[in-house]
């Protein structure tokens, strides 16, 4: 290979990417190190061949964005990393409506078919097809560049990319309507995309943070839903059903995301919180004080009332329901979360623990009125019955 250090490094990175993708599916090979080296060598040879092809492709790209956008779907495994990164940023460009960014990213970066996207987003195929046609046309006609943004624009644009990926993940992790609590395939797809972005931008902390967060949340999927499709809260989950491989992948990413910049970003902090849960063997081993501290940091970089609510819950766990309830009541007084079912559910839970059952029942009732996800509704209804019993 002519002693080209960069090339060798890239080849090994590629190999790791393939490993991360295949090993969870196919199982870890008996000699992982040898597998990595063999794969790396093979990837390096492939890369040399592709670079020759790339010179031809670059001539093609120069001929117009139209060709680039048209020719890329379905070839994602063979694409050179630089092209792929540019494509990610193009698909998540703010000049595109969010409802166009999501299917476009799934199609051009994820390589999903129109049918798969329609199923994943619970939309008619015709709607997805139309959005894709319009979005591709907008990219082409309005001159959205298929390239990494300039350094001064990168932070905001990267935020946009991560937001799209997290949106896709949340669609799969916790469906907002319908009977299924999780749609594993969509969540897994979001993880795959986040992994791609992380590997393409290894020095950026937030892609690592987001990937870790997704992996940790996804690691609980088998334990989150009970036999009857009911929602199982974190504290009641059978932790032996947590995906330890996913957790093992996530924890080093959390450390990386937290230490890679002077101040930790929102995804890194959320991942750190999820990691505290993941490290607890039993619910009673959870280091709630650490979680409360992390939420304290998170609410400073992500000052949303939802984060403040989660902090209140953590504080309640660390310091008792009275303190937590005081914080929640502050939020209620501010009126921002009135339509958020989890505010009322959290309040109900704290009241219930205080033994204030009538007030708890009223709060569960309110939460039930606002919740749309079936398993969550069943859970709230059950709690409501308990309070009324």
């Amino acid at each position, binding site marked *: 290979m002519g002693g080209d250090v960069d090339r060798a490094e890239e080849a090994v990175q590629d190999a790791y990417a393939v490993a991360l993708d295949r090993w969870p599916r196919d199982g870890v090979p008996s000699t992982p190190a040898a597998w990595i080296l063999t794969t790396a060598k093979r990837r390096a040879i492939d890369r040399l061949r592709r670079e020759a092809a790339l010179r031809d492709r670059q001539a093609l790209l120069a001929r117009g964005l139209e060709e680039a956008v048209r020719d890329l779907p379905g070839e994602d495994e063979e694409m050179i990393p630089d092209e792929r990164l540019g494509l990610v940023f193009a698909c998540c460009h703010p000049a595109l409506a969010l409802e166009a960014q999501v299917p476009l990213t799934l199609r051009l970066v994820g390589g999903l078919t129109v049918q798969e996207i329609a199923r994943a987003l619970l939309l008619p195929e015709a709607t997805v097809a139309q959005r894709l046609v319009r979005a591709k046309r907008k990219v082409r006609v309005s*001159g*959205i560049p298929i390239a990494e*943004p*300039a350094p001064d624009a990168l932070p905001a644009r990267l935020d946009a990319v991560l937001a799209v990926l997290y949106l896709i993940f949340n669609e799969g992790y916790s469906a907002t309507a319908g009977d299924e609590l999780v749609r594993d395939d969509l969540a897994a797809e979001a993880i795959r995309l986040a992994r791609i972005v992380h590997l393409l931008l290894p020095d950026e902390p937030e892609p690592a943070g987001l990937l870790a967060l997704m992996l940790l949340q996804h690691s609980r999927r088998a334990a989150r839903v009970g036999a009857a499709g009911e929602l199982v809260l974190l504290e009641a989950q059978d932790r032996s059903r947590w995906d330890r491989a996913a957790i093992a992948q996530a924890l080093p990413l959390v450390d990386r995301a937290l230490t890679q910049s002077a101040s930790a970003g929102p995804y890194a902090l959320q991942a750190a919180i999820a990691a505290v849960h993941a490290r607890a063997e039993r619910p009673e081993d959870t280091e709630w004080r650490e979680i409360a501290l992390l939420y304290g940091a998170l609410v400073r970089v992500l000052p949303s009332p939802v984060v403040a609510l989660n902090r209140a819950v953590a504080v309640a766990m660390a310091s008792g329901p009275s303190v937590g309830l005081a914080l929640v009541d502050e939020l209620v007084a501010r009126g921002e979360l009135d339509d958020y079912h989890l505010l009322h559910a959290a309040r109900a839970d704290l009241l219930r623990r205080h033994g204030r059952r009538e007030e708890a029942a009223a709060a569960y009732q309110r939460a039930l009125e606002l919740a749309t996800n079936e398993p969550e509704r069943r859970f709230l209804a059950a709690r409501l019955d308990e309070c009324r019993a």
Partner: protein
Amino acid sequence: MRYMLLIYGDESGWGNLSEAEQQAQMAKWFSYTEEMQKAGVSTQGDALQSTATATSVRSKNGEPIVTDGPFAETKEQLGGYYLLDVADLDEAIKWANKCPAAPTGTIELRPIQEFPDAP
């Protein structure tokens, strides 16, 4: 790639400025135009007189139907334009962001339809 950079803002704002403020604002516009010309990204631009001076024309049976005012009453009115020639949308956005009207109004970027065989 060519774009129209269309400048929208609340016209009434101008009248509310003191003379000193108006002069300061005009200086910003001149410096913006100059910067774009030096960078070679804009070949043409103009400020438009207010919508009170607009005339709208439709045509029926070959006869003009003329009315006083802009084609639509809007909260923000078209106040000017620049013709841009830049590499891509991101560069156009960069210039739109620098526009003195951007903090208080809206800049619309519209790609120009190119006709390869046009004279």
